């Protein structure tokens, strides 16, 4: 056999080995069995969940206790319920479990899960009764002027980056800049990027305020974190100097809460309504060997003084809870209290 032929056949053998050795090169870590699914979920939270340091939970004991109930012949619904039992003590609104192909709905790990409806808030009903004209920006804001020259801004989400948020909010303030007071309504709706709320808050600051610290997991141990990053609100753009009220409820979650952290450090800001949801950290999705999905919080978010509100929420300065019949009748006691404070 010549050198050329030897080399050629060696090459063909190499190619065939590349094609056929995928099992050797790419070995899955967990099996798609009830035990494999439960173990994958426990391990993923063990290594990636960022809230263990601020929550009094013995994660190892949780495994020891609950894994006894895992059987190879259990149904998907039984397995889902066992996974919910594992995650429930975290009391984390960013934790959720997404089933596939079983008779269960998405499970949310928050107080929100205990509400059978959005009982205390409906933006459309309320705006019809309190605003003569509602204007909207391209993405984030609905706004108008209420009786007594009070500005009202509802924030749909915080999905824009900081510079786009500032640009869009400046459009709002062109019309509301001369009002006697301003209401931010951050009840319900979606979260988004923390930098977006930081951008809005910069239009209210008279000085630099240290309002938040964040750190995320960088290793498998419960106390493996990146160095804390300090977040500041810096005065920027045209400042709004009049009093501001933040309206909150149990659905005020995530970037809505970090926006509240940025605003509440300023002396002209008052929070009215209900306690917020208590889920500040960024959260990421994951998946299990059977295809189910989940979300977990990846870090520790505190206010500028190092106080964590994870799982607790931020209590308002003035506690007012709407009742569902009132809201259906078009009455918003939380909003009316805000108007009273600002007048």
């Amino acid at each position, binding site marked *: 056999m010549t050198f050329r032929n030897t080399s050629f056949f060696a090459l063909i053998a190499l190619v065939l080995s590349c094609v056929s050795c995928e099992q050797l090169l790419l070995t899955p870590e*967990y099996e798609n069995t009830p035990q494999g699914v439960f173990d994958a979920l426990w391990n993923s939270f063990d290594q990636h969940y960022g809230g263990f340091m601020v929550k009094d939970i013995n994660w190892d004991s949780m495994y020891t206790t609950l894994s006894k109930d895992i059987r190879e012949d259990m149904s998907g619904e039984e397995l889902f319920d066992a996974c919910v039992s594992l995650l429930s003590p975290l009391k984390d609104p960013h934790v959720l479990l997404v089933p596939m192909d079983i008779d269960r709905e998405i499970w949310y790990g928050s107080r929100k899960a205990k509400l059978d409806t959005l009982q205390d808030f409906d933006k459309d009903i309320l705006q019809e009764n309190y605003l003569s004209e509602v204007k909207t920006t391209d993405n984030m804001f609905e706004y108008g002027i209420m009786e007594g020259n009070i500005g009202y801004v509802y924030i749909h989400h915080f999905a824009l980056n900081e510079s786009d948020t500032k640009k869009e909010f400046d459009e709002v303030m062109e019309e509301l800049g001369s009002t006697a007071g301003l209401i931010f309504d951050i009840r319900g709706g979606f979260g988004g990027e923390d930098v977006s709320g930081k951008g809005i808050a910069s239009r209210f600051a008279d000085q630099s305020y240290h309002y938040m610290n964040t750190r995320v997991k960088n290793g498998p141990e419960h106390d493996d974190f990146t160095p804390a990053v300090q977040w500041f609100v810096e005065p920027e753009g045209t400042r709004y100097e009049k009093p501001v009220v933040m309206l909150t409820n149990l659905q005020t979650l995530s970037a809505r809460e970090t926006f509240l952290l940025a605003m509440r450090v300023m002396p002209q800001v008052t929070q009215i309504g209900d306690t917020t949801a208590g889920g500040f950290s960024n959260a990421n999705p994951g998946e299990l060997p059977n295809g189910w999905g989940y979300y977990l919080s990846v870090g520790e978010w505190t206010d500028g003084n190092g106080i964590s509100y994870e799982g607790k929420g931020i209590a308002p300065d003035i506690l007012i809870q709407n009742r569902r019949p009132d*809201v259906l009748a078009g009455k918003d006691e939380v909003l009316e209290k805000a108007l009273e404070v600002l007048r």
Partner: protein
Amino acid sequence: MKNLIVVCSLLGISMGLFAQSPSGKWSINMGYDHAQINDPFSSPLMYRAHAIKVGTHYQKESDVFTSFDFALSIGNSQPVNIGQRTATIIEDPDIYGERESFDVSVNPLLSFVRARASYGIGWEIAPHHFLGAALKAEHTYTGIRLDDWFYTEAGLSAMYHGSFDVGAGNLDLDVQLPLLAFVVRPNYSSDAYLPELSSYYLTYVKTAGKVVGLHQLQHPDIRLTYHPSGNFSVGYHGEYLRYQEPGPVRLLSNQVFIQYNF
């Protein structure tokens, strides 16, 4: 759209640079890319992509061998053992107690994109056998764990090119092995959390981009092209990737293609 412009520009540049060269030859190719990704740090599920591969290739062989290769794979990626996942999301009840629902599909039709470009130069060590170096860049973007997943690598590789007479035609063998590369992967928490966040990707470049050597990154790349007489060639391109940050990542890609030589 921005990505498409970049791709078209790269194709244009490659053809423009080398098409005028009298002794070089350039070609276009099209084929099938079967890629498998196992990233247990992100997901316990192994993913398999079926993709269409298109590309262009240039090579010039004299005392010095030079080559340029660009390839783009676009297709669909799903977990091997589960396949396409769909679900109906039922929203919380509104104040009237009514609930809305909507259907979602995980990794719909186009969910796998991989672009690679390399420029190599080699010096003859024996007739039709060359050893040298290549600059290579590669970006893979797909969906894993119900979220974006990416791998970016740019660096310097050792390169070998050999040409063998086989039957009436000849077989080209090209091998590249990265020696030093800048790799971008998500950080451990897969989270962009910085207060000066402008884009997730740039944050990952800042917080998790690393210069690595052969002991941290093993990424052999083998390309075999058989040229019978005529303008058409057939080929195989195989890659195996092994990288450890932020957790073990494995990628195995097997591609077959038909090439038209100008």
